[in-house]
């Protein structure tokens, strides 16, 4: 069956768009001189305070560029200066910072259109950084700003419009446009584009109605798809960025920039950029079909791979595979996606992973019966909304994916919290009375959707669930629902953030990858499962610690520069396996050094690249400590991420666990009661985790409590007076590694 990719419900009829625009009232107007970056930087950022409607420019200092680079680094630095240790997500001084990074917006190297959103998260109370595609970041840069910093709160719903062609910034009251992103992005794009040709030069940031009522609100960044003639969406998903956005009463941020050109960044060496980019385009052309099939399946190709290795989360991370997985496997999605048109979230991304399922007829809720293009589902959505909730129905996964995006909900947190709720329901911790009538058994897709609709309407059990797993656990305990220990074991969050969708039970390194991650358990810091569990390439604690040093830092670098991770290792050079360290994809690391030099004109070595990240990574750790998290006790995973919590889990893989008891713990399981075996295995695994933490802290140059040592702080020039005041008392009573 083929789908017509231009056929969808129209939300941007010219007369209606004009009417909505007419209802805007300009609250503030400011002008600026548009500029293009030189060697990747504009040397200024834009500051907007919504409480008093201040609009001003701030210089980018040499120190900012040297230590913080851009993107996530700039965001963390600006946020650090804006908040106090007592600041929480909904205080007016909390900021929302959007920064693309010096390499962002180049059109030659695949995956170069990312922005990084930084704010204090409502889920974690520490900084969250979320890497997102769409055209906003590059267009902001080509308007003249290296970051957009928003503080304060508006007293009514507003739209912020940055016109990088006319040099104008407007804060407008926007009373009529709907909040939900599929409509908002479409309408605002048409409101602010000058004409049809200009549509690709406009990008909209919006959230959705559920961001008003939950802590898991996400942001949608749009990019205009000329073939589909639609505003497509990419999400800054994690950590509640959309919640902060709506708390500031922002309905949309719109940027209109000049058309991006090959040299819009004024790169130091355009020929080097072109050469490096074309080399990768060719690799993707020749290798994608054999490797990841991004062109046909996006990231959904992972579903059956994860299932095969017992890594696909099923029923709240209890199990790693399911007989019904074939129903949501990549070849099924491939039938649903439109293939053969460019699906890159920025120009030049030949990975083209943003698959669209066209002509999807919405099954429930306020848009029932509408025809839409659903972006994705990406692997995380198929696993989180699907298998982890026991749902193996493609159409319902498309449905929940669609609504997550348009309501402004993080699919990963939603999937994980819904899975938790379902397990609580199955175990009697919740029941129909406690959920207000929702029968939240595993596999009940309609109940899952109703839970989501409640979040958007701000009612019922949706309000409780929408606060995330950590707060639900607390709430259930306070109500006397369920055993607190069990709740702690099965609630899949660390630091307040829900886990992303991979099973880490059999990979100690990945347990660290999740629980030690600065922002909370998100795989974009480290994904070591294959290296560790499948290929056994990092057997010792030191090996794992080295991997947990290198990979999080290497991946941090993408966020500093405005890049996507996928083109690094979702495509590999044909001879990669023959290199000495295939997991690092050495040739691609060299490409990154080359494009960094190509744009900024500064030479970069592979070692230098890691050092750049290390400074920012340590700074973020210190920031966490400042906000009250970020020490050893905050780096602990729930036991579900480490081993079998329940009898059923143990029994389902009894052979594996018995063998481990025998071979790794040196205990003969023969004749031992199940409870005893579970206890022994747990003790072993928890010990192993603690040993891993020691090895990692040591490698990272931290104390046993997880605080960066003075040596580390000085090495990266992070010895700002405020940092010293914070860490000196902690270091005075710290325990150091030999």
């Amino acid at each position, binding site marked *: 069956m083929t789908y017509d990719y231009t056929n969808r419900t129209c939300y941007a009829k010219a007369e209606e768009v004009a009417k909505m625009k007419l209802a805007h009232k300009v609250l503030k107007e400011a002008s600026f001189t548009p500029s293009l970056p030189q060697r990747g930087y504009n040397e200024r950022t834009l500051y907007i305070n919504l409480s008093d409607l201040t609009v001003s420019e701030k210089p980018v200092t040499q120190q900012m560029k040297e230590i913080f680079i851009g993107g996530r680094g700039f965001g963390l630095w600006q946020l650090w200066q804006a908040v106090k240790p007592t600041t929480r997500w909904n205080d007016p001084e909390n900021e929302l910072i959007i920064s693309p990074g010096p390499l962002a917006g180049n059109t030659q190297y695949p995956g170069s259109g990312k922005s990084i959103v930084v704010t204090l998260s409502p889920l974690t109370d520490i900084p969250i950084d979320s890497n997102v595609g769409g055209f906003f970041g590059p267009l902001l840069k080509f308007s003249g700003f290296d970051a957009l910093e928003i503080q304060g709160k508006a007293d009514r719903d507003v739209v912020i419009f940055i016109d990088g062609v006319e040099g104008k910034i407007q804060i407008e009251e926007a009373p009529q446009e709907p909040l939900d992103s599929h409509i908002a992005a479409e309408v605002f794009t048409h409101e602010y584009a000058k004409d049809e040709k200009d549509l690709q030069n406009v990008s909209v940031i919006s959230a959705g109605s559920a961001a008003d009522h939950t802590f898991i609100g996400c942001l949608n960044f749009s990019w205009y798809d000329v073939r589909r003639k639609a505003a497509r969406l990419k999400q800054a998903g994690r950590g509640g960025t959309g919640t902060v956005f709506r708390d500031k009463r922002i309905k949309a941020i719109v940027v209109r920039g000049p058309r991006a050109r090959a040299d819009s960044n004024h790169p130091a060496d355009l020929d080097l950029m*072109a050469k490096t980019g074309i080399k990768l*385009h060719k690799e993707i052309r020749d290798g994608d079909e054999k490797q990841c099939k991004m062109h046909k399946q996006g990231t959904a190709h992972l579903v059956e791979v994860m299932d095969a290795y017992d890594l696909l989360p099923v029923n709240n991370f209890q199990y790693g595979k399911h007989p019904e997985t074939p129903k949501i496997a990549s070849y099924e999605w491939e039938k649903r996606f439109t293939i053969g048109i*460019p699906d890159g979230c920025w120009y030049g991304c030949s990975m083209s992973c943003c698959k669209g399922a066209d002509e999807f007829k919405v099954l429930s809720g306020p848009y029932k019966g509408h025809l839409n293009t659903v972006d994705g589902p990406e692997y995380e959505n198929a696993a989180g909304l699907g298998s982890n909730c026991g749902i193996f129905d493609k159409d319902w996964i498309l449905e929940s994916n669609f609504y997550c995006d348009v309501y402004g909900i993080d699919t990963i947190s939603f999937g994980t919290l819904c899975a938790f709720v379902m397990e609580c329901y199955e175990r009697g911790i919740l029941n129909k009375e406690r959920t207000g009538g929702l029968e939240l058994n595993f596999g009940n897709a309609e109940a899952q959707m109703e839970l989501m609709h409640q979040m958007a309407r701000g009612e019922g059990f949706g309000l409780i669930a929408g606060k995330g797993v950590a707060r639900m656990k607390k709430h259930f305990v306070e109500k006397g629902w369920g055993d607190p220990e069990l709740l702690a074991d099965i609630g899949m969050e660390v630091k307040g953030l829900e886990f992303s969708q991979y099973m880490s039970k059999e990979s100690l390194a990945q347990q660290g990858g999740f629980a030690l991650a600065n922002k909370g358990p998100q795989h974009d810091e480290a994904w070591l499962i294959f290296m560790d569990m499948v290929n056994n390439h990092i057997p010792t604690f030191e090996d794992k610690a080295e991997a947990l040093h290198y990979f999080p830092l290497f991946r941090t670098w993408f966020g500093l520069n405005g890049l996507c991770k996928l083109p690094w290792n979702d495509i590999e050079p044909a001879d990669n396996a023959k290199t000495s360290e295939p997991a690092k994809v050495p040739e691609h690391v060299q490409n990154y050094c080359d494009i960094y030099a190509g744009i900024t004109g500064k030479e970069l070595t592979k070692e230098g690249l890691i050092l750049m990240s290390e400074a920012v990574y340590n700074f973020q750790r210190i920031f966490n400590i400042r906000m009250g998290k970020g020490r050893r006790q905050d780096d602990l995973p729930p036991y579900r991420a480490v081993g079998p919590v329940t009898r059923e889990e143990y029994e389902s893989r009894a052979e594996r666990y018995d063998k481990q008891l025998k071979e790794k713990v040196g205990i003969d399981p023969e004749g031992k009661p199940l409870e005893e075996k579970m206890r022994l295995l747990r003790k072993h695994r928890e010990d192993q985790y603690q040993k891993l933490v020691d090895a990692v802290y040591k490698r990272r140059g931290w104390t046993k409590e997880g605080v960066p040592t003075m040596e580390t702080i000085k090495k990266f020039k992070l010895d700002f007076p405020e940092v010293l005041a914070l860490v000196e008392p902690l270091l005075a009573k710290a325990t150091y590694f030999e």
Partner: protein
Amino acid sequence: MKVLRIDLKKCDGTQACMTECARALFKSEDVAFSSIVVVRENGKSVATLCDQCGECISVCPTQALYRSKIGTVMLKKDLCTGCFMCIGFCTKGAMLRVSKGLVPFKCISCGKCVDACPNGALSLEQVDHENLPA
């Protein structure tokens, strides 16, 4: 549409076609600006020609590449964003770029090279393009 063909047996590698193409497209005497490439390898001519297949149209994110009414694949420079995906994805290597170039360039089947070839090695063939990407 018209597609450029070469009879390699007749080609002696004088590159008269390239000189003429560079002049026609860029008013340049430098053969690096030619959209047809003919080189000699081990005493034989090897040619890179665009056959107007339109694969590049499918990868272009801005629709800067399009098929003209008479079937030739053309570039609207004002829409081109310089991503060079068309260069990377062209299996014939016929989409080209010169040093410092902001946009790629390609053969537009104009036929100037056909007239310029002293050996009559080049010709334009009329081919049906109905089922090719547009």
